[in-house]
């Protein structure tokens, strides 16, 4: 409602006023962080988010200064980590490592989706296929992907293929399970309505199930690519010479904590960026899907 009001000319003023009211409320009630069912304006949400992030860096900074001087290099200050990051970028061709890692993540995730999305949707549509495959796929979810490293090394050697395979294994089974659930959640009446209109099986799947499930699938992909980023370091720890994970491992051997932390920050930043990219893509691709929360 607020957003809608903001579009009209007079509404803009009302929007500002509301925002002021919000700020007043927070000021008036001493600590309204824990107030139930509060409606926040976009600006308040952004400010609170920034405050949280700033708080994190402040605590880190304090932690650094509370550390005894001889061990301070094990907890470098944020600005030192930032310095290390800049040095990496300017002098150590870190961009190449970042691009390598991004390639590994996106290529492996693309491959995983290529299999998991059609398979998950098909399993959601066809009971017999689901009954055939689901127990096995569910079981694979409980096998730790990292435990496949020795096997993949034997099969593929210390190659890119081995790392891509590990990243695929890390996400694909969860992705299938999530997309299966998404597909099961498609409102059955939509399918029945199409059937009573005379739609055939293929039409029901491609013209009803697929568009109905698409926003949820993109959501699942967004959540799973985050898991992909968490597997990146595992993939690049063993038998890797390039990539963000490899840089961090090398730094670890020389106790260069600032570089390790710079790597962590890089991955965190890239993860958040991917997330935002997915959200924007979803908003652009599904303008009809208003229920999506941010």
């Amino acid at each position, binding site marked *: 409602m607020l957003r809608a009001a903001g579009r009209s000319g007079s509404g803009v003023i009302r929007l500002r006023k509301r925002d002021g009211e919000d700020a007043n409320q927070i000021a008036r009630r001493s600590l309204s962080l824990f107030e139930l069912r509060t409606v926040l304006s976009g600006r308040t949400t952004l400010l609170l988010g920034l405050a949280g992030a700033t708080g994190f860096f402040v605590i880190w900074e304090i932690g650094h200064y509370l550390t005894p001087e001889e061990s301070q290099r094990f907890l470098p200050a944020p600005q030192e980590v930032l310095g290390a990051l800049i040095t990496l970028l300017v002098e150590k061709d870190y961009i190449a490592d970042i691009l390598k890692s991004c390639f590994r993540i996106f290529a492996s995730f693309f491959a995983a989706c290529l299999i998991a999305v059609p398979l998950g949707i098909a399993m959601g549509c066809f009971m017999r296929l689901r009954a055939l495959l689901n127990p096995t796929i569910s079981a694979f979810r409980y096998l730790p992907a990292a435990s496949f490293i020795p096997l993949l090394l034997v099969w593929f050697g210390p190659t890119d293929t081995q790392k891509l395979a590990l990243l695929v294994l890390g996400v694909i089974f969860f992705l299938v399970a999530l997309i299966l659930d998404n597909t099961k959640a498609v*409102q059955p*009446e*939509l399918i*029945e*309505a*199409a*059937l*009573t*209109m*005379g*739609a055939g099986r293929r*039409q029901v799947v491609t*013209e*009803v199930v697929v*568009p*109905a499930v*698409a926003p949820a699938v993109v959501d699942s992909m967004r959540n799973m690519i985050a898991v992909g980023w968490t597997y990146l370091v595992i993939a690049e720890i063993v038998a890797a010479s390039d990539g963000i994970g490899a840089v961090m491992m090398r730094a670890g051997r020389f106790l260069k904590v600032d570089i390790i932390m710079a790597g962590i920050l890089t991955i965190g930043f890239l993860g958040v960026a991917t997330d935002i990219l997915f959200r924007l893509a979803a908003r652009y691709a*599904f*303008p*009809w*899907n*208003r*229920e999506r929360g941010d």
Partner: protein
Amino acid sequence: MPVDQAPARTAITASNVTRQYVGGTFTAVDDISMELRENEIVCFIGPSGCGKTTMLRMIAGLEYPSMGDLTIFGKPITGPGPDRGMIFQAYTSFPWLTARKNIEYGMKIMGLSRDERSRRSDEFLKLVHLDGFGDSYPASLSGGMKQRVAIARTLAQNPGVLLMDEPFGALDAQVRWEMQEMMIEIIERENTTVVTVTHDIQEAIYLSDRIIFFTRSPGRIKADIPVSFKEGRRIPRKEEMLALPGYVDLERQLFAMMREEIQQK
């Protein structure tokens, strides 16, 4: 206006239709036979769990009888098809299509040309009082409007029989009333055969020429009641019907039957 033009054809027959679930332990519909005539508006009414929805879904071809036969205009019903349009209680307008594209979807399945589709979608948008909303997505429409999109989409296929499963059950009282009057107007214009499931007694009397009352588990026909006080008229305004002699008697009779059914355990 009246429905008494010539001998009406038989639209739908059910012969000894039984539907059992869970390996025969639960009987939803028990040995029902009926004959529904063309251009007739029939309401299935009865307490919850009386099999009226199951019966409708079998006519739609979405479920199959365990025993017995169903036909539409003489042909056996073997599955769903565009000759029987169905409106559900849940909103089934496709959220990813605009109102217009929704209405065109059924016609697209039938293979109508693009020109024909856009001409007819205009016509049906107007028919359900949605002209001006053709380019809106369902998310920005009210519940009643979403349901009208679904109704227009179904009618645009020109089905011989229109099946409605508690079509206005999710709407608030005022919108439900508006929709009922709109339905009367549309049915009158399109000359459709209609089967509606409802548990709203007033709605059943207002919409139908004939009310089939179902008993509760197992679902059987308790009574087959012609709504004779309307003398075959489709009444555009609900309050006119309420003023007719005979209305209250029928309503009282149906309430008494409903109580009877509910009280039997």
